[in-house]
Each structure stands twice: as C-alpha cells, then as structure tokens.
C-alpha cells in the first residue's frame, strides 16, 4: 500500500530477503528445518553473528521461516537479550540479583549511571564506548556485588574499583 509517500519503507533500504542474503544463517535455518518454532534459536544465532538484530536480518528470518514481520519483531522484542542497536566497544553489566542487592548493587549502578551518563565526570574520557546494563543474577553470588565486563566477572566491586577498571579498558 504506502499511498502516503512521505513514509519511506525501510524495506527499500534493506537487502531483499531470500537465499543468499545472509548465507551465514543457512546452517541454523536448516538445523531448525525452516520451522517457525526455531525462531528464537535462529535469532540467537543471528545476533551472535551480527552483534544485533537489524531490520534486514529480521526480514530475512521472517521470510525464511514464513512468518509475519510483526510476529518476528514482537517475539524478538519480548526477550531482554535481543538488541536492536549496535553494541558498544565495551559492555559493563551490573548484577542486580538478590545477593548483589543486599551487598549494595544499587549504589554501584547509580554511581556508574552518573559517571557514564552524558555530562558525567568520565564522559570526556570516552564513556560512549562503554554500554551499561544490568542482569538479574548470574548465579555466582559468592562474589557479590559483581559486574560482568566484556563477559569477564569482576567480583566484590565498588564504584571506584569498577571505574578504575573501565578506565583501564579505554587505554
């Protein structure tokens, strides 16, 4: 349809779905038999390969599994771990599970939010390269409070120790 010409369909900007657009997804699509129930497995793999789920990827997956676009987007956006923006160079995830909460994860998170926010003390030092996130328990509560930086667990942290560590990453 799109009789309203002021709207540019994002389809025009993306590659056409079909075989060959994302050949790297073929193995997982085949393993899932191109069945709709494999959607989450396919999305997991797509994000693993591309760091995020772009509209082009989502269109390709929808076409390959014969699913309506809104079904694919609705499902992908339901789950916390799927992302629709490119990842930053570094990722700092504060655990906000029960044990970490009891040991001060809240203060840790607030301090990091402040420091890494635009205008925060560390912004000038390149904070945009660090993405701050949270996770509800990684199940290694002995090290509370902890953060996970680029998949590495840093145990028993304070705001100062995390910031010092993050500054080290930037260099």
């Amino acid at each position, binding site marked *: 349809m799109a009789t309203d010409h002021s709207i540019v369909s994002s389809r025009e900007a993306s590659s056409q779905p079909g075989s060959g657009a994302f050949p790297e997804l073929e193995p997982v699509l085949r393993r899932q038999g191109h069945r709709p129930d494999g959607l989450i497995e396919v999305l*997991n793999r797509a994000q693993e390969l591309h760091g995020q789920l772009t509209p082009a990827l989502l269109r390709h997956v929808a076409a390959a599994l014969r699913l309506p676009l809104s079904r694919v987007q609705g499902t992908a956006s*339901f789950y*916390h771990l799927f992302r629709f923006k490119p990842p930053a160079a570094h990722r700092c995830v504060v655990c906000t599970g*029960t044990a970490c*909460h*009891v040991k001060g994860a809240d203060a840790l998170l607030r301090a990091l939010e402040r420091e890494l926010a635009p205008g925060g003390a560390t912004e000038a030092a390149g904070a945009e390269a660090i993405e701050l996130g949270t*996770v509800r328990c*990684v199940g290694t509560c002995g090290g509370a409070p902890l953060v996970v930086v680029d998949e590495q667990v840093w*145990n028993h942290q304070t705001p100062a120790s995390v910031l010092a560590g993050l500054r080290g990453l930037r260099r």
Partner: protein
Amino acid sequence: MSGILRVCTAAGCAGCGGSALREQLGAVIAAATTGDPASGLALKGVGCLGPCGEGALLELESASGRRLFGGITPEGVAAVAASLANLSPGTDLGTWAPPAARPIDLEQPFFRLQKRLVLEHCGRIDPESLAEALAAGSYGQLRRVLQENRPEAVIEQVRRSGLRGRGGGGYPTGLKWATVARMPGPEKVVVCNADEGDPGAFMDRSVLEGDPHRLLEGMAIAAWAVGASRGFIYVRAEYPMAIAHLRTAIAQAEDQGLLGAAIAGSAFGFQLELRVGAGAFVCGEETALIHSIEGQRGVPRPRPPYPAEVGVFGLPTLINNVETFASVPPLLAIGAEAYAAIGTTNSGGTKVFSLTGDVRLAGVLEVPMGTPIATIVETMGGGAPDGHAIKAVQTGGPSGGCVPANRLDTPVDYESLQELGSIMGSGGMVVMDDSTSMVDVACFFMAFCREESCGKCIPCRSGTVQLHLLLQKHLAGEADAADLAQLESLCHMVKDTSLCGLGQSAPKPVLSTLRHFRGDYLALLRPEPEATPEPVP
C-alpha cells in the same frame, strides 16, 4: 607422587581464579609427567565443590584422604602452581600445603550434614567426560529400566518415593508422570525447565555444569516411562557454561547410543534438543515456557488445559525442572522406600539449596527434606558474619517470602514453608542480617516482578508498577497509613486476579514481610496529616 587434583571450574570459581588455576596446574603436571611416566598425578576440572563463597577451590585426593583448599585468588594462582612444580617426586600429595590457599575443614557441618543424591557426582567427576560419568554409574538405571521393560513400574516407583516437583510447586512427580502416560496419542514430549531465574538461586546451574549426564539420564527415563519420543531442555542464556556442557553431553550420549534412536539396544528412541532462552524470567512458568519453545513470545495462557493434555506443539507434555529429573536415577538406585525414608511424610527425599547473602559459608548444599532452616543457615552456613544476627531467610525468590529469625526452627518441606507465607521455591536461600530493611527487600523483589511481567494481563502489568511505586513511597518516608492500607489491598488484588503464577505470587514478598516485619513498614510512615475540621453542629 600420585593422587587427584580437582579444581572447581563451575561459573562461580572460574571467574575468581579457577580457570587460571586449572590451566597452570595442568601445565605443571604435563611437564612433570613427561619427565616421570609413572606419575599417577591427575588433574580434573570439576563442577561445584560446594562452598562457592570460598572460591577458587582446589581439592587434593591421595592415599591419605581428601583435603579442600579455598580462597585462592587470581594473584595467588602462580604461587600454587610454582609450589606444585617444586614438590620432589617422592612427596605424598597428602603432605603438600599449597601456599596462598586456606584449608577448609571437610569435617565441618557444611559437609558432614549433607546427604548428596542429586549432587552425588557433582564435584567428583569431570562433567565433560562421558567415560567418567559412566564409571560413576550414570545411565545404569536407564539401562536397567529399559531391560525390565515395565514403564508403569517406574512411574509407580516414582510415585511411592514421594518425589515432588523441585521447581517450587511441589506437585507429586509420580502423579504428573502417570497423567501424561495415560494421555492418548502417538507423540508426547518431555521438557526440562532449566530456566532457573530466581535471583540468588543457582542449584540447577551446579547440576547442569557439574553433572549434565545425570539430567539426561533422568529425562530419558521419564520419556520412556510416559511414552515420549521428543524432549527439550530449556536453559537460560545467562548460563553459558551450562549450555556448553549440555551440548557436549548430548553429543556424547548420542554418540554412545544413550540418546537418539534405539537407546542401549532397545526399541526406545528419544530425540533431545536444547533450547536457549533469551532473557525472560516468566518463561519459568510452564505455559510461557511452552510458547517460548515454540518460538513465540513467552507469555502464559490460562490453565486448563494443562501441559499434560495440551503442551508443546499441542502434544501431551511432561514438564519437570532440573533437580526433579536429576533425582530420578538415584531414587531408582536406592529404591522408592529408601528414598521416601530420607525426607518427611509429605516431602520425600533430599533438596538442593543455594545459600547466599549474609552468611559465613555460602554455596550449594543438599540436605534431607525436613531439615530445619536453622540447621542449614546457622549450623551449616555458620550464621551471619561480622557480629550480626540473622533477621530473616528469604526462600522462593520473587515468588516466595521471608522466614523470620524466630521461626528458623521450621523444617524445609512444602507445607511448613507455605504455612509461613513463603514457599519452598526452587531452592534459593538468601540470608539477611539485622541491618536489612525488609521494606527494601520487598521493594527489590517488586522491581524484579515489574521488570519481568510479560504484560499480558492488567493486574500484573500495571499492578506491579503501582505496587513498586507504593513501596518506593514508603522507602522515601512519604507514605501514610492510607498508603499502607492501599499497598496491602492492592497486593491481595494482584495475587487473586493475575493470570499466571508470576503475577499471583509477585505480592508474596510484600505480604510475607508485612506479616512478619510490619514494624519495618510502620517505622517508615510519616505522621498523620492534620485532621479535617469537625462537622459544624
């Protein structure tokens, strides 16, 4: 020099030096064995050794017995490796005292009072080796039941054992199996709920990382007993090591004919697939879990129909959690009567707990059902550290409640905990000392439920937000008695009207703290505003 060195490489220890320790000790032993082919020194990376708060952990086993060392930091790893390298070839491993490591007494209650059935091999075997699992007896019960060829007898054994769902609900496992077995139709499905989402709970992770074959065997037995030929393990993405070990284990078992077609030479076939979640606590709810396995949004639907009738792909489906399936092989090994005798009348067998929070010895432990909470947190866990006293023990995560200190004599069984307004839950036990504000704890769990609500039904989607706002108002000291009354009544409304277990139990941490720690709430109320003028006569 002979003996076994076991390094805990479970996620907790791996992150604080365990991986490096395994690597460097491995290098030392490799170098030593090239010079001394007769060396009987073996290094194993094993699953959880228990006291996770003490990691990284190293266990030494020699002719003179087993010894455990903890507190090894990433910085101390090199010193431990160097010390091992410097041992003269004739030294008994039993006399070696690794530097930069703290000996942990294996005779203390934390270890002595455990009854390890589910965790029998966890921490003993290399979880990535099928040979070790087989040597420890894995798949023996599967082979036996296939040979005896009486599925109904297996279900009867499970029923008589008194085993109940270890995921929290406590539904009798034998009854569930019998229901699915009775369902008509040629195709059925078995699902393992490994979406261990309660913050502060990591029992299932320990099993998945430390002894995955025990789970696979339990699932295969269940599939055979109920007549299922397909299975899924739904595991949360936050457990990368568990996923890796499961993938390895499934491939190994298929290779050896213990999964797949014609298992162990029988006519029974069982195709097992791994489904990795993508971050949604609500997928622990069984109808949401089914939707997620089917590749959809993980939203629950009303029951009935129950999954036993209409489950994955509309097929009759048996859903149990990790610990329930993992309890089956040992249960069959020791016999239903012996298993039932371990626990209480209404709750048979053992239960695995993860103990964290304000407690001296944190970690994973397995005890007989009916063990008093005090035994677990005080005798085994050593109580609260730093001169503090225990104020409460939280069980059941966001769906559970807080047991006050004066009720710690309560035995851990389904009914007793329910009576206190909490639940057994999956086994997370978070100890809180006397510096803890219970309103803050309630607010924490409500924030969790708010974040994890799927959004389908209005009481949970919007009610958890309003409850969270009300709790924040209390914490800010801005609430009055009317707010407290509203908090309480909205809790009941959300509990009574939400569509699924997440919403129905979301108010429990509030209601349980209101019941046992009302003073914490009252202390935060602001004084009553000035009364409105009296009616004019």
